[in-house]
């Protein structure tokens, strides 16, 4: 969306978003998280895999703000690098789901008939298994690793996008400007890309934002179960899982990865809720 015309829906939504303090807070925190993730190499005080067995199980101190883990690795650095992994998995998985789900949903809504029937029945099948369970089953089959984790989460997220985009397409397709474009000889692709998609941008942006939160949560859940990111890579869920073994004496280890997940999810939710209110002021609660 390079062009933001004055008084366009997007422009009005952005104006409304600017008045929502919680959404702005969420956005600010996300900026910080993305920044630290991108420049983790310069910001993190230590390397995420650097072991120092003489300094293992150090509680938070000046040298190690978040303490050290069972191998003497700096937890702050691992949390920072973990953000890189979580954001990467969340964003790539949702982008994948948006792309596939979007194409399927747009095709189903636009062409209707048999295409619609087939696409939506397949989506119904995927929806008939609870989302986290579907991800777990797929990840179990694909095996551990970041790419497989992304695929498992993306597949489970696809039906939601297909449904929302199909619904949006159906609500727009009856409008006169679509008919006008068709009369002028526009191709189907052109109509979908140029006329229909921009008009359901609002619901797509909202769903995408909220879904990145869901995806990050799913990624850490899977890693917690040992299905996602493997050691020594510092995934927040995997770090929590490892810290569980030292609850009795070194509880600080469980605090920071959990906080990191919570803060990330919360800012995405604030931003997503704010975007929803901004794009659909009538729905405002």
């Amino acid at each position, binding site marked *: 969306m390079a062009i933001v015309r004055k008084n366009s829906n997007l422009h009005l939504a952005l104006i409304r978003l600017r008045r929502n303090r919680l959404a702005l807070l969420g956005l600010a925190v996300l900026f910080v998280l993305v920044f630290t993730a991108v420049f983790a190499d310069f910001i993190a005080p230590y390397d995420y895999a650097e072991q120092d067995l003489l300094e293992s199980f150090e509680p938070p101190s000046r040298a190690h703000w978040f303490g050290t883990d069972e191998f003497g690795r700096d937890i702050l650095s691992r949390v920072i690098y973990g953000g890189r992994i979580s954001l990467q998995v969340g964003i790539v998985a949702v982008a994948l789901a948006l792309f596939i789900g979007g194409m399927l949903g747009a095709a189903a809504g636009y062409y209707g008939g048999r295409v619609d029937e087939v696409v939506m029945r397949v989506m119904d*099948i995927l929806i008939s*298994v609870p989302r986290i*369970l579907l991800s777990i089953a797929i990840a179990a089959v694909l095996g551990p690793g970041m790419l497989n984790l992304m695929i498992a989460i993306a597949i489970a997220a696809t039906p939601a996008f297909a449904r929302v985009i199909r619904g949006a397409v159906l609500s727009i397709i009856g409008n006169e400007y679509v008919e006008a474009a068709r009369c002028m000889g526009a191709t189907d692709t052109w109509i979908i890309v140029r006329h229909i998609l921009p008009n359901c941008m609002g619901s797509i942006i909202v769903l995408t934002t909220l879904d990145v939160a869901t995806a990050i949560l799913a990624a850490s859940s899977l890693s917690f*179960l040992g299905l996602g990111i493997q050691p020594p890579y510092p995934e927040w869920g995997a770090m929590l899982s490892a810290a569980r073994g030292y609850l009795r004496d070194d509880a600080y280890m469980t605090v920071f990865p*959990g906080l990191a997940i919570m803060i990330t999810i919360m800012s995405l939710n604030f931003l997503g809720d704010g975007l929803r209110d901004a794009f659909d002021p009538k729905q405002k609660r």
Partner: protein
Amino acid sequence: MFRYILKRLLALIPVLIGVSFFIFSLLALTPGDPANIVLGADADEAAIKIFRTEQGLDDPFLVRYARFVYRAVAHGDIGRSYATHRPVAAEIVTVFPTTVKLASLAVLTAVVIGIPFGIISAVKQYSVLDSVTMILAMVGVSMPNFWIGVLLILFFSVHLGWFPSSGFDTLSAMILPSVTLASNTLAIITRMTRSSMLEVIKSDYIRTARAKGQRESVVIWKHALGNALIPIITVVGIQFGHLLGGAILTESIFSVPGLGRLMVDGIKSRDYPVVQGGVLYIALMFALINLLVDLLYAWVDPRIRMRYR
């Protein structure tokens, strides 16, 4: 009504076929020969060959799938566990009640706490109580389940020693897992109840009820809640289904011997028939719960009930 239920039950069949096909092909594509998983990596060729023939592993994929469906439908046989050699169906039936109990306790906790708080929050919109409730709800939505579980164990088992940190056999052992599993749902139900009530409270018939001098408590709890209940029921129903899936994490944190734990163990030991059976079973339950939720609508809302006649 009866015809409607029947129609919905019939509509389940293609979905279940689809899910079973999806899961079956997923597991068929898995690298690794089941014969090696069962007999060990260094089993000799002859034994592997016998095993493969016995299990029909050399047949084409569609034949294997058809046989799976036939056995499942005709005999309720969805394969045997590689690890215990017991029928998967029997294993699932043994552990499933525990998962249902866990999920039910969680939903109960969430409903009993979430709906009243949602209502009070809506009635006293913008009050301190409303803000605090909404902040807590936001925290509840954003905290990963497993982190809540770990923190609860840390405080209530390790430090205070009030509740055991694992198991599910006594009432005190059920409290932490249920609260853990309930936390996200509780937050969602609170938020949903609040927004649903806010919408209803502004409507004309509430003003009418107040105008005719009805007591405020009756207005809120009868007129308003009665109408706000439909979206709440939807959320509760959907959540119950998701809790069956989400129980996987809770069960593995607290070592609850339920379906989730069975499946996690199955995944770890590559006991695929168990995983496959578990996913199918939950999909079936999920679908039945959705049907139940739709029927509940009719019970709550006379307008919908009329349509089914």
